[in-house]
C-alpha cells in the first residue's frame, strides 16, 4: 500500500469500524466467559443473517442517496404471505415464489413512488412502512401461524460444513460476494456511485438514474422477502409483527459501515464489518442479560455514534490536509493554490 492509500484507509470510516469491532470483541470477551466460543460465533452469524441480507441492498440504496425504511414491514408482509400460503397446503415452491414476488412488488411500489413523483424516499418508505405492516395485520390479525411444513423449518440447523456453518450461512456468504462484486466491480455499481455522488453528471452521461433507483428498491424488497423466509424457517412461526424494528438495525449496520447518508460513499466490506460489530454487541448484551428496551437504546446509540463518527472522520481528514498545507505556507515554502497542478 502506498503511503497515500494507507492514509486514505487510516482516515476511512471502514478503519474506524474495524477498530470498534476489535474493541467490542475484547470488551465482550472480558465480560462473558461464554463469548469466545465457535458455537457462539455460529449463533451470531445466524442471528445477523437476516439483517445482513437486507443491508446488502440498503448499502447501494444509501450510496445512491435513497433509503428504505419499509424493509422491516416488507419482511413482515412477506412472512405473513408465506405463512398463509404454506399453512393452507400451497406447494412450498409456489409459496416461496409468491413470497419473493410480494417483496419485489413492495420494492417496486417504493421505487415508482420515489422516481415518478420525485418524492423523498424517507417520506415514501415511512408511509409504506405503515402500509405494509397494516396489510400484514389485516391478513393474520393477532394470530400466530405455526403450521409450517417440516421440510421448510429449522434451516438454521442444517449444516453445510461440520456443526458450525449452516446452509443459510453459505447462502448469505454467496449473496454478500455477489453484492460486493456488483457494487464494486460491475458497470451497474459504477453507475450507482456516479448517480449518488453527482446525480446530474450521471444524467448528463447517459445513466438512467431513475431506472437504477427502481431496481435498487426492488432488490431491497426482494432481499427483505428472502430474509423473511430465513426468519420464518428459523423461528418456525409467523406473526403480523414479524421483523418490526428491523429497519433500525439494518440502517445502523449500513451507516456504521461507512456508507454516507448524503450518498456517494459506502462499501459492502464496511457493511459486513459493521454487521459483525452489531452481532457481537447484541451477543454481548444477550449474554449479559440486558433487558430488551436497553438493547434498543444501545443500538440507537450505535447509530448516532456512526453518524457522528462520519462527520468527525471527515473533519479530521480535512484538518490533517489543511494542517499539512498551512505548515507549508508558514514555512514560506513555494506553493501553488492547487498543489497538484
Amino acid at each position, binding site marked *: 500500500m502506498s503511503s497515500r492509500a494507507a492514509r486514505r484507509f487510516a482516515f476511512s470510516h471502514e478503519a474506524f469500524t474495524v477498530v470498534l469491532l476489535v474493541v467490542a470483541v475484547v470488551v465482550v470477551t472480558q465480560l462473558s466467559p461464554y463469548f469466545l466460543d465457535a458455537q457462539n460465533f455460529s449463533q451470531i452469524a445466524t442471528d445477523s443473517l437476516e439483517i445482513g441480507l437486507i443491508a446488502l441492498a440498503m448499502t447501494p440504496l444509501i450510496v445512491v442517496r435513497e433509503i428504505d425504511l419499509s424493509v422491516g414491514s416488507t419482511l413482515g408482509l412477506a412472512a405473513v404471505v408465506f405463512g398463509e400460503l404454506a399453512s393452507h397446503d400451497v406447494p412450498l415452491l409456489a409459496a416461496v415464489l409468491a413470497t419473493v414476488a410480494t417483496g419485489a412488488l413492495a420494492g417496486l411500489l417504493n421505487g415508482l413512488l420515489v422516481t415518478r413523483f420525485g418524492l423523498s424516499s424517507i417520506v415514501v418508505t415511512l408511509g409504506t412502512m405503515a402500509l405494509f405492516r397494516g396489510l400484514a395485520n389485516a391478513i393474520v390479525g393477532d394470530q400466530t401461524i405455526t403450521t409450517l411444513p417440516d421440510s421448510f423449518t429449522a434451516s438454521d440447523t442444517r449444516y453445510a460444513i461440520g456443526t458450525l456453518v449452516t446452509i443459510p450461512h453459505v447462502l448469505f456468504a454467496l449473496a454478500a460476494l455477489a453484492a460486493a462484486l456488483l457494487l464494486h466491480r460491475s458497470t*451497474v455499481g*459504477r453507475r450507482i*456511485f456516479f448517480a449518488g455522488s453527482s446525480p446530474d*453528471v450521471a444524467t448528463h452521461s*447517459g445513466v438512467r438514474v431513475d431506472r437504477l433507483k427502481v431496481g435498487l428498491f426492488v432488490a431491497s424488497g426482494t432481499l427483505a422477502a428472502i430474509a423473511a423466509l430465513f426468519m420464518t424457517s428459523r423461528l418456525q412461526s409467523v406473526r403480523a409483527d414479524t421483523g418490526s424494528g428491523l429497519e433500525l438495525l439494518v440502517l445502523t449496520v449500513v451507516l456504521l459501515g461507512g456508507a454516507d447518508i448524503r450518498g456517494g460513499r459506502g462499501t459492502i466490506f464496511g457493511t459486513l464489518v459493521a454487521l459483525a460489530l452489531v452481532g457481537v454487541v447484541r451477543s454481548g448484551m444477550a449474554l449479559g442479560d440486558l433487558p430488551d428496551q436497553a438493547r434498543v437504546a444501545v443500538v440507537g446509540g450505535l447509530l448516532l455514534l456512526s453518524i457522528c463518527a462520519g462527520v468527525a472522520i471527515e473533519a479530521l481528514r480535512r484538518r490533517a490536509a*489543511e494542517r499539512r498545507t498551512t505548515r507549508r505556507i508558514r514555512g514560506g515554502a513555494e*506553493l501553488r*493554490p*492547487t498543489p497538484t*497542478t
Partner: protein
Amino acid sequence: MKRREAPRTPERREEEKDHVPEIEGRDGAAVPVLEARAVSKVFGGTVALDHVDLSLRAGEIHALLGENGAGKSTLTRILCGVHRPDTGELRVDGAVVDFHTPAAAQEHDIAILHQEPSLFGDLEVAENVFVGRQPKHGRPPRIDRRAMRAEAAALLAELGAELDPAARVADLSLAEAQLVEMAGALSRRARVLIVDEPTAALTPGEVGDLFRVLRGLRDRGVAILFIGHRLEEIFALADRITVLRDGRFVDSRAAADHDEASLIRAMVGRDVAALHVRTRVEPGEPLLQVRGLARAGVFEAVDLDLRSGEIVGLAGLVGAGRTEVARAVFGIDRRDAGTVELAGERLRTPQQAMRAGLAFVPEDRQREGVAVELPIAANVALPILGRVAFHGWLRPGRERALAREWGERLRLKARDVEQAPRELSGGNQQKVVLAKWLATRPRVLILDEPTRGVDVGAKVEIHRLIDELAAAGMAILLISSDLPEVLALSDRVLVMREGRVTAALHHAEATPERVMQAATAEAQAVAA
C-alpha cells in the same frame, strides 16, 4: 458555504500576530476604511489565499481583479465575515477587527451586493430594504408600513431609481433587484460596499445605470470594492486596481497607471499567446438537424443545422434559453415540439444521442460535467462504460489507459488518473470533461461555456483544440457568453433572446454590435 471552522486557541492567534509584519500608515495617506493584511485561507489541501493585502479608502472605487481561482471570492468572503482568515488580520479604520460572522462585518458598516441578489422574493421592495430593521410604531410595536415605504422611496430616489416600494421583489428585473440591495446598504449607512460581478447578466444600458449609481455612492464617501473581469468596465469605473493571481497579491495601483496589456500581464503572469485561432475549412455534409424545437415557456421554434467541420456559435444573454436548447437537443429535458436528427437518425434520449455520436459538455462543470469526488479515470470512462467494460464487468486497467491517453492529448495536469477532480483547477477539470466526451469519438459536439472559469492558458489550449476538432470534421455548437470567443471561432453565429433565435449571422457580418443588438433590443426575427 458550510465549512466548519476550528475553534482558535489563543496561542494560535498569537502565532499569527507574530507572523504579520507591522506596516505603518502609508506615506501620510488617510487611514483605510477597511484593510486586509497578509490574509491567508486554506481549504482542504488547497491554498485559496496566500498572504494577501488589500486596503480600501473612503471615496474610491477599487477594482479587485484576477482570473477565476485567483482568490477574489475567498477574499470577498473574508471581508464580509463568511470565512475567517487562517493568517493575517483585518482592520477597520486602523483598528484590528475579528469578523466571526457576517453580522459582525455588518456592524462595521460593510455591505455586500451579491452576484445574485439575496432578497426575499415574496416580500415587497420596502421590506427588503429594511429587512430586520423595519420602522415600528404603536404598542405593542408594529411595523410602520407607511413610514417604511416612504423611507424606501427616498432611498431609491437617492439612487436615481424609479421603483415602487410596494412592488414584489420577485417581479423585478435583476438590475432593479440590485438597486433594492443597494438601497438596503444605503439605509444601513454602509461605508464599505462590496459588489461581486454585478454586470454579468445586465444589458449594456443597465450597466451604464449601475455605474452611475456606484459613482454617486463613491462621491458621497463610500468605499466600493468592485469585483469584475471585463477590462473595459474596470477602466471605465475604477480609481484603483488590485490584482490577485493564484491566491497571491500581485499589485495595487491607480487605474491610470495600467493599460489593458499591463493588466492582463498582471493577471496571467506573462504575455498571452494569441487567443482565438481558427483555421477555416469548407463545411462538409450536414450532421445535426434541429427543426421547430420548443419547450413551453422556455424557448420556441428553434431550428439548427450543423455541418461537418463547422462551428456554429450560439450567443445571447444569460437566461436567453441557450443552455435549455442544448439540453433539449441532447434529450435531457423534455421537448414539447420539434425534432432532432443526427445524420438522418431521430434522437430522443441522451442514450440515443450518445450512440449516434452526439456529445454535450455542459455549462455547470462541477455539477453536471464531472463527478468531483470520483477518480478521473472513472469520469472519463463513464459515457462509454459499456464499451470499456467486459460484459458488464469493469476493467480498471483499460479505464486508466483511456484516461491517460486523453489526458496526454489534452495536456491534463494531474498527479495521476486516480486523483479526484475536486483537487484540480477549473481549467483541468474542464479538460477532464472534454476528455470524457472526446473519448466517445463524437461527430457532433455541443460545448456550453467551455472556457468559463478557466484560466487564460487553458483557454488558449481549449480554443486550439476546438479548432483542431472542427478541422478534423467535427461539427461544433459553441454556446458562450464570451462574445470575442464566439465571434472569433464561429463560422456562423446564432443569437437568442427570450427563447427565440433573433439573428443568424455569417462570421463576416457578425460584429459585436449586431450580436448585442439581436441579444438585447426588440429585433426582427431573421430566418435561420
